[in-house]
């Protein structure tokens, strides 16, 4: 299920990402948030209740759209440009605390 609806500018080149392992398509020039929410309904788990979160302010103020890459990098989805080949984790974390 997607959340955002594209209303135009759909002539851009396609790019490919994965969300929690599933391959999806987005468009060059999408923010990561748009690339994700054009394909899925939420971006992250809330730490302190059972709910999911899908961002809020879209201008890098609310900090409610941080996602993980499979490699363990943190990205603020609304202020990061989506790139072909990104592998995004929206459930749980990709924190590798163990040192070895």
């Amino acid at each position, binding site marked *: 299920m997607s959340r955002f*609806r594209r209303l135009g*500018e759909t002539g851009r*080149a396609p790019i490919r990402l994965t969300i929690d392992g599933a391959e999806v398509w987005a468009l060059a020039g999408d923010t990561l948030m748009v690339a994700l929410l054009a394909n899925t309904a939420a971006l992250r788990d809330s730490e302190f209740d059972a709910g999911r979160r899908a961002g*809020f302010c879209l201008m890098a*103020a609310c900090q409610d759209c941080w996602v993980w890459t499979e490699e363990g990098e943190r990205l603020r989805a609304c202020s990061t440009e989506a790139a072909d080949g990104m592998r995004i984790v929206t459930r749980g974390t990709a924190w590798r605390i163990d040192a070895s």
Partner: protein
Amino acid sequence: MADRRVVVVGAGPAGTRAAERLAAAGLRPVVIDEAALNGGQIYRRQPAGFTRPAEALYGFEAGRARAVHGAFEALSGLIEHRPQTLVWHIYDGALHLLCGTKAERLPYDALILATGATDRIMPVRGWTLPGVYSLGGSQIALKAQACAIGAEVVFMGSGPLLYLVAYQYAKAGATVAAVLDTSPFSASVKALPALATRPAMLAKGIYYTARLALRGVAVHRGITPVAIEGDDGVAAVVWRDAAGRERRTACDAVGLGYGLRSETQLADLARCDFAFDPIARQYLPVTDQDGRTSTPGVYLAGDGARIQGADAAELAGRLAACAALRDLGHSVPAAEFASLRAALAPMAQFREGLDTAFPWPAHFAAGFADSDVVCRCECITAGDLREVALEKGAPELNRAKALSRVGMGRCQGRMCGPAAAEVLADALGVPVEQVGRLRGQGPVKPLPIATEIVG
């Protein structure tokens, strides 16, 4: 004097005009901006590869947007533009910058903060559900990405942006399920004399409202939000109409906002004095009419100082630059100060009119259920706040923060601060100014531990 470093933070209308004026005086200011492209939020530019004309993005403001963008482009080579750079702290006469994971300390001789604004939010039950976005965020989705936040969108809250964004959505082909305005019609009537100080702006407001009606969008005034409902995302908004009847509007997205609040964290870290502004019902940095703060060498301009809109921001940016130049020993014609100040005067009056027409619904705070979430980062409820107010002795916001964690999360109180103040003041039975404001703490935004010091 050419070696004096003047730094402008923000590349929106205020920052652009400040930089332009500094460059005109022969300086080479550093312009630091979080975004990749100049323009700020109001004149935010779409990424490369997008093809919509300025008229489609900015409507009536297309000309102004083009002018501001053009002015910035004309500064190429005359300024040092540092895009995608966050000022994460200010300390001891220097900015602390973050670009990617590189941190740099940048001392300044004069600093103009043009940090803009974000939405002012009054929470409502269910506001953390996926599908609820700030009004400004809803507009950015459309303006910068040609997206709607959902298939059927309700816009709820108050302020001129409510009508503008609804209009822009409808015009772009989105389905607007309803516009739910908490301010009563009577408030607009009361505000008319002040709003008439800028007839063109008033006319635009009337135009958007009329256009929404023509497109068959339901507009309700004087409503009271009850809840945003849904299991794993927005399914409906429940609200009471002006007559008190409970209504339910099905939708899959909500744009929520009650005007704007200034982004004042950097002014706070620069140790500028703040004072309560009864019209905005917020603590704002104290400035003189030209933008000087209580901290020598630090100036404020635009919505980051007080919410007056983009046109005023352009004037204020230029005025703050004039003030900085004069304080650095440059000669600035008195007539320039006079004309900028005169041009700004009606803006302030119009702003007061907007605050009268679209009042911040402080009284909603009393109506929150104890289980309603106020702080979305930490999931702190109205009940948590009332408990620390009444049982643990929190007479002001920072104590309430220490005891309840309100405002302690990733956003540092940006989203919950104004509402938390109202809930606390209501619980204590004191005026909101008495509970103070959340003190700013660095980093202004989350700072990677992998950050390395450069330079």
